């Protein structure tokens, strides 16, 4: 097993009577991508900002790279890189100047041009920060987070507010970080992001973990089994399915039916064939983390995110 780089035990953060982080414990291993997944206000950012020495904790024990987050702040800062939530750099400095600004704050740093190349920002090297698109700003932010060649990189909601293409670019950047041997701590409220990038993750809600493990473990344990989607059914098909599987979801001409057991799929196909109706296709999907969250909390993570204006 890889070396443990972060140990959190019983971490608690209270604001008055509100408990934002409620006695959570976890470990992060060297070289992995570890994610905290949850809706806004779940306590993700509070947790990572405590680890980044940006906020004081109320209780608990946290060690980053073996160091105490209260006493060894300066030493920790030298060895971690942070892309804060809603990251901004200096509007009227160029990409390179911004990287140099933050880099020069450290005694030891990487050359700006190496980072610009690594983040594929060569064309924007001399562009003012304020003229960059959201995705390019985030990439600049990651470049800045890397400038002190940190062992651990914290990325707090790196793809929030980005269009799908830019989001995928950011994912690529995160995969590259992992390849370089960096430990990455990611917070996100995008299920797909957590699922595709994380080695391990914790789903957090109201300051507590409600699920923890590899994406596969979590889905297997808390998921609701595979589902069959029959699309573009005609009336005959729809009625037959509704009759036999009333618990399915029916929206317009589509039917979604949860597979209760191994035989369910063949039963559905058989029933459809026998009904004599027409449909376009049958699709089987594995449950996602979204289903896990829905299953565990009765709420949808994405809807909450949207309701919060993100």
């Amino acid at each position: 097993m890889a070396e443990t780089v972060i140990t959190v035990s019983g971490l608690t953060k209270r604001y008055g009577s509100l408990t934002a982080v409620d006695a959570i414990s976890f470990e992060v291993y060297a070289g992995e991508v570890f994610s905290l997944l949850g809706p806004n206000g779940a306590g993700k950012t509070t947790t990572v900002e405590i680890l980044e020495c940006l906020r004081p904790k109320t209780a608990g024990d946290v060690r980053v790279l073996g160091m105490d987050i209260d006493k060894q702040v300066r030493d920790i800062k030298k060895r971690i890189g942070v892309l804060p939530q809603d990251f901004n750099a200096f509007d009227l400095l160029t990409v390179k100047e911004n990287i140099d600004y933050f880099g020069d704050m450290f005694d030891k740093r990487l050359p700006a041009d190496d980072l610009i190349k690594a983040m594929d920002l060569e064309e924007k090297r001399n562009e003012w920060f304020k003229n960059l698109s959201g995705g390019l700003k985030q990439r600049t932010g990651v470049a800045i987070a890397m400038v002190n060649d940190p062992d651990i990189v914290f990325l707090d909601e790196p793809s929030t507010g980005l269009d799908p293409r830019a989001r995928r670019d950011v994912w690529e950047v995160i995969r590259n970080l992992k390849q370089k041997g960096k430990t990455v701590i990611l917070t996100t409220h995008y299920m797909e992001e957590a699922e595709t990038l994380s080695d391990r993750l914790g789903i957090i809600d109201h300051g507590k973990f409600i699920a923890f493990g590899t994406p596969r473990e979590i889905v297997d344990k808390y998921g609701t089994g595979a589902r069959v989607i029959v699309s573009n059914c005609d009336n005959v098909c729809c009625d037959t399915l509704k009759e036999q599987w009333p618990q399915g979801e029916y929206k317009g001409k589509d039917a979604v039916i949860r597979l209760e057991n191994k035989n369910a799929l063949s039963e559905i196909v058989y029933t459809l064939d026998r009904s004599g109706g027409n449909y376009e296709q049958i699709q089987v999907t594995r449950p996602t983390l979204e289903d896990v969250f829905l299953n565990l909390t009765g709420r949808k993570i994405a809807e909450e995110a949207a309701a919060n204006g993100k």
Partner: protein
Amino acid sequence: MANRVWVAFKADVKGFWRNKSNVFWTIAFPLLLILLFGAIFAGSGTVNVPIAVQDQSNSIASHAFLDALNQTHSVSLTFIDRNANIDQYIHDNSPSVVLIIPDNFTSAFVPGAPNGTATLQIRSDPTVQSSGIALGLLNGIAQQFNLQIAQGGNIIVLTHTDIVQKHFKFIDFFLPGVIALTSMTTTIFWMVSVMTRFRTNGIFKKLMTTPITRYEWLASQILWQLVVVFISVGVIVLVGVAAFGMTIVFSPIAIVTIVLSSALFSSMGMIIARFIRDEETASSAANAITFPMMFLSGIFFELSSMPDWLQGIAHVLPLTYVGDALRDSMVYGNDAAALGNMAVVAVLAVIFFVAGVLVSKWKTE
């Protein structure tokens, strides 16, 4: 540490030149001020303050003092009979300023004299604008005399002292006020706006993840504001001299006062910024602080012409001391008084800086 201050400073310089409206206002604001005051007061011509003098001493010493006063070319003296009743004279002639040199004036200059003080009596009409100038001039000369005596010089030397020997125009008296005002508004507005912006857009949070400390960052901002203030002062001086033929004397005391004033008001800006939530409120808050100070601190109006309660307020406003120090040094040539006021500014600058560092927080709870 010095390195990090320098890095942050350089970024300000770059950002400044790239923001054209920033550059424009840094130059336009002082330009407007000086043109405005120039237009209002340039027509006033040279200052000539009438002073009625009762020279009860009628001695070499008192003549030396009056000579020095005459040397300023800013006064015209009328002499009152030694034995005249002053109250009667004031009643009959309504002079705006009366100076009474006491009988024992000479004895004050005899080393080891038992009664080594001479009290110059000045009576002035506070409603007359020029009386404040007369007070300043008299005060300056008196201080200069005292200094000379304290250093063991003799009376003859006194007649040669150049204290204020230029022809002052009325506008010259406003120049220190304009400089004091600029050093205040420039720095307060900058600090309040930049700190509010960096807090809301997350730059402070990002800075916190690096080794730079609050002290280092604040030091870089004060350093940068010094440069901006001196650019503004440069504009004021250039236009003042070129357009209005102002007489400008910069002593080291004036320069140091401007430096301290910039630090003082930058620090005050930090403290104000602590209580501002968003950028929209930032400039109104800065206005709310700077506007009253501009009018209450006597940088443009002689304090002596204000009601007592206003004078009381003026004496607790830092800008008063900046204005006084600059005027003492640049107009009256009264270095002793200038140093005193400068010392007050220095102490306030330290207090405000420490308070500013203590209250300004990057950390979120």
